[in-house]
């Protein structure tokens, strides 16, 4: 599903954020991505959604090389990936419902479909009663969960999360993890960037460890950090 081949990323006027990273994530797999602050986790995820282009190497999403994808094709790529952003990226002047409905509207769903799916997604993250609130009227953790609901409402084949539990307490974090596992069980490929080692180590999922832009480890994590 996701394949990186010798991918490097150099930001203008900066050192290398990623250096020759290669890995392969099979369809239906779930994996973690970890590393220090500034190690390049977000950069790696941005390459998958074509927010950034690799400076070198190739990125394959479902057998398609997106490292030099045309700008007009990017929207179609993004519609097939559910993304949870580190800074939520909610629209502050739209209600929680409208925020979560956005991917469905973009994809051309019907109105009744939208209502059904949005409520189901909000249910899953425990925010059913906040549907009519504006994001700024929610706590940080609630906003994060709105972002999660928006990412999964479309039932994408690939789910990518950047620090999805940064603002959640341990209990809620575990619940969200269970949600990701449920998705994974119905065949969704999941890649989660996180620095919460407790969360990662307890589960038996493979883990990509970045160290200053280089892939330091790929596999199960057993205290090697």
């Amino acid at each position: 599903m996701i394949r990186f081949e010798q991918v490097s990323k150099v930001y203008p006027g900066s050192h290398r954020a990623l250096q020759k990273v290669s890995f392969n994530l099979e369809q239906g797999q779930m994996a973690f991505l970890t590393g220090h602050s500034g190690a390049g986790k977000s950069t790696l995820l941005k390459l998958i959604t074509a927010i950034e282009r690799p400076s070198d190497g190739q990125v394959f999403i479902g057998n398609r090389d997106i490292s030099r994808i045309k700008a007009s094709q990017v929207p179609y790529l993004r519609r097939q990936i559910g993304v949870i952003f580190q800074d939520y990226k909610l629209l502050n002047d739209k209600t929680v419902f409208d925020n979560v409905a956005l991917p469905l509207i973009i994809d051309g769903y019907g109105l009744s479909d939208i209502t059904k799916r949005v409520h189901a997604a909000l249910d899953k993250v425990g925010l059913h009663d906040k549907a009519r609130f504006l994001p700024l009227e929610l706590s940080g953790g609630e906003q994060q969960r709105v972002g999660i609901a928006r990412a999964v409402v479309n039932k994408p084949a690939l789910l990518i999360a950047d620090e999805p539990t940064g603002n959640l307490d341990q209990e809620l974090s575990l619940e969200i993890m269970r949600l990701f596992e449920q998705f994974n069980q119905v065949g969704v490929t999941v890649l989660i960037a996180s620095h919460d080692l407790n969360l990662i180590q307890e589960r038996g999922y493979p883990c990509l460890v970045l160290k200053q832009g280089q892939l330091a480890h790929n596999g199960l994590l057993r205290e090697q950090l």
Partner: protein
Amino acid sequence: MASVHRVSFTQRFKMYWVRHLQQALASLGELWRTPLSSMLSIAVIGVCLSMPAALQLAYKNVQRLTDSIQSNSQISLYLQQSVTEKEAKAWQLELSSEGGVADTQFVHRDQGLDQLQQRAGFGSVLSLLEDNPLPHVIVVQLASSWQSADKAEQLLSQLAQAPWVEQAKLDLEWLERLDALRAMFSQSALFLIVLLVAAVVLIISNTLRLNILSRRDEIEVMKLLGASSRFIQRPFLYTGFWIGLTGGLLAWVLCNLMLFWCEYALSQLGLAFGQQLTLLGQSAQEFLLLMISALGVSLLASWWSVRRNIRLIEPK
């Protein structure tokens, strides 16, 4: 790669139009929600568009006026004192069939004296005359195709050579002045129209640019969620559409107000001059032209601005 569930094509097609309608109404609602700013844009555009429309109307009226003055331009043939009324009338008949002559009129010497007496200050003076010193006059109305200064002069010299004619006079200077005035008017009108249309384009594109900038975050998020540029552009294009439409209507209203005011002013002036003046209004075609150009200009400006500015916003 396929998503778990996808939307059918017909569904997608239906929703495309539903969204279109929604976005059109939403952008109207958006204008409504920020009444001051949108009214301002509309007002400025209305004023800017009303000027070309008013100028066009003014041009039409000036054209009519000069036409009527020109079509009154005539050559007066002062005949020899010796020419009798009979001879004059015979020659008048001959003249009527000549090229460049639309109409002829015989003015008897007594009639001429009456007219002269009515001119300011001469009434009592001329009534003291014992003899009428004036000759008969034939007034030649120029055909419309002969009303340019050159051609009129050509006809004048031709008529002046006739043996009956003591003197032939054409108010040529008036023609030249009118031509100069009209050329100047149409030149400056054209210049102004170009300027004003440019202003409309700039104002609309700037309004949309600021509109887009103030919704930068939203556009960024939409792009991140896979919205196509066209989908993102549409509400702004609709905004441009509504601004153009209402701006055009406002221009029409303003133009008619101006017309109304001018007619009132002219009627007041007319009272002083003892004349009744009327103005030509806007025809249905001209109204349509105004609306179409208002919409066209604003849609083009919006499209240009929206494409350019939305492309500049890229998620980081």
